[in-house]
């Protein structure tokens, strides 16, 4: 019995280490390449000279400071919008009955099946009709009513015991009060997990922002990053890895800092 247990644990540990290293390899390569001169990109030499020149070159190749600001404004705007809208929608789908509720919810689920890229032309026309072309709002608006977010929060809200809601009602709380005092606090892990997925998705989104914006004042970091992917000329790995580390750095650091909370929230929210 105890032998069998050890065997299992050994395999688990081995598997975890293997996957961990596999996941980490590209980042190690990126760090190595970014901190050494170009000629060491494909050659490993412990004594190779270290340099930060690649980061300086990458930083100077595009107005990254402004791009970072834009990206941060964008993901914040999207996240707040999604939280407000998805919370209200999920709440009404969970606790209220109204005509057409099932059809509406089916439509929300249908959104999960549609690739956003198919809607690019349609979204562009809508943004133009709203006069929003070349604004940060135009990048974010199509994503605010997130079917995934509504679905996820609805499932979480459904697990909240009715008794808690009834108790709150006895205490005199109205529908909004119940949402704010009962549902939202209990769904915190879901919010955290969904927030992480949303922020990292929109941090990395490229095509739609490129299409709907034209100026430095509105474009996110991914558009700046794309300038290094020059096929005609061959790719300079040192600079592209430096730029990639730079643009994904804030996300990576945030993840490492909040790692424990994230992992726990994923486990509680049931997305794996």
């Amino acid at each position, binding site marked *: 019995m105890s032998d069998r247990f050890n065997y299992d644990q050994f395999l688990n540990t081995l598997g975890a280490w293997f996957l961990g290293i596999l996941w980490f390899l590209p980042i190690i390569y990126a760090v190595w390449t970014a901190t050494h001169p170009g000629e060491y990109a494909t050659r490993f030499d412990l004594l190779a000279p270290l340099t930060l020149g690649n980061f300086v070159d990458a930083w100077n190749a595009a107005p990254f400071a402004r791009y970072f600001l834009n990206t941060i404004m964008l993901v914040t705007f999207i996240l707040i919008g999604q939280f407000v809208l998805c919370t209200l929608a999920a709440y009404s789908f969970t606790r209220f009955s109204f005509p057409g509720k099932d059809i509406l919810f089916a439509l929300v689920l249908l959104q999960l099946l549609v690739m956003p890229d198919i809607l*690019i032309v349609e979204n*562009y026309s809508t943004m*133009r009709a709203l006069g929003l072309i070349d604004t940060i709002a135009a990048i974010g608006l199509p994503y605010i009513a997130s079917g995934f977010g509504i679905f996820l929060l609805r499932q979480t809200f459904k697990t909240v015991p009715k008794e808690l809601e009834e108790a709150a009602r006895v205490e005199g709380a109205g529908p909004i009060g119940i949402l704010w005092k009962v549902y939202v606090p209990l769904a915190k892990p879901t919010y955290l997990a969904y927030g992480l997925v949303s922020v990292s998705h929109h941090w990395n989104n490229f095509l739609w922002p490129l299409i709907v914006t034209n100026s430095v004042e509105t474009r996110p970091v991914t558009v700046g990053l794309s300038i*290094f992917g020059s096929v*005609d*000329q*061959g790719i300079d790995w040192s600079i592209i890895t430096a730029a990639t580390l730079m643009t994904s750095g804030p996300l990576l650091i945030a993840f490492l800092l909040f790692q424990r909370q994230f992992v726990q929230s994923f486990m509680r929210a049931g997305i794996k």
Partner: protein
Amino acid sequence: MSFLSKIKVGAGAIALCGLMAGNAQAVDLQFFFPVAVGGKAADTIAELTNEYAAANPDVNIDAVYAGSYQDTITKTLTAVRGGTPPQLSVILAVDMFTLIEEDAIIAFDDVAATDEDKALLKAFYPAFMENSQTGGKTYGIPYQRSTPVLYWNKDAFKEAGLDPNTPPKNWEEMVAFSKKLTKRDANGNVTQWGLRIPSSGFPYWLFQGLTTQNDVILANNDGNETNFDDPKVVEALQFMVDLSTKHKVMQPGIVEWGTTPKAFFEGQAAMMWTSTGNLTNVRDNAPFPFGVGMLPANKRYGAPTGGGNFYIFKDSTDEQKKASFDFIKWITAPEQAARWTIATGYVAPRPDAWETKLMKDYVADFPPALIARDQLEYAVAELSTYQNQRITSILNDALEAAITGKKDPAEALKEAQKKADRILKSYR
């Protein structure tokens, strides 16, 4: 106030408006450009655009970086369908038929008013114009144009006992040289391949070099008929496959574009076929002396052209169209074309650009820059048809299937021709 004085005031106001408008009314142009050769090209475009704007205060040009070629056509078509097209854009020459079909662009003949303007349409190399004209009209002005050339490592040639100053002239020589240049270690693993012809993403482009050398064209000028199953095309593909399987001088399977220059610098391949867009990169980064030559001949010399043209968009005012044309005239003029070529390695698209002092000094210092120009004499239009994206992806799939050994070249190309016929039938 009498009726008459009212009119006077009104007239005065109108006149005033007219005056103010005369001063402040600048034509606004939006200009999308792709970058396929790194950040420096974007800087050069911005620099040239600013210079033009400074000299012409009545025109505002908003130069918008639009990603890769693929991103640029997506962005532009989205904007066209959404009703806010740019006034002008640099887009792949091969997307001409797509843009015509979308009714997005106008012919330059419609804005070329004077004799001088009309002469401009004849100022460029004919090889570049093949991709820019159809039905007797000119839809594109060549700008960001390239052609593939052969780069070779002179040190590796010396080491293999070859003359470092003589590149292979034909297919047999290329195979023979490559065999000498391919080095294996004691275990039989290759440490240096003789040749590298990249094939990832868009294998059709360099493959078109081989078919042209085999004296066959892949598509007609009207863009509605392809020749994929011609025996000469099959022969060219068989040769490409043989380089890895029979002669064993090229890395088998799909060879990456992006890493090709790096592999050349690292000595993993002694010769490479790649775009002239790499010239400046190779010059700056190759740690050994290198040579640049024309692609080797078989039945004839041959290479496709590539790269982007200027297009003017339909949904603009007449002033905007005229201003766009004036800007294109300026930026493609010999002096500016020379600066662009020196900064990027693209081929200056008109003969008189090579006569400027700037360019003469450049080639005197760096003669390999001339190779691409000299090869233009043998160059043909890059594969371009109606439904271009679909047709090229059919051919790419067939080439990949043959290169990876999934299908026999003849069979793969026959299927590709059948699929292409089905799509192009309605355009004949």
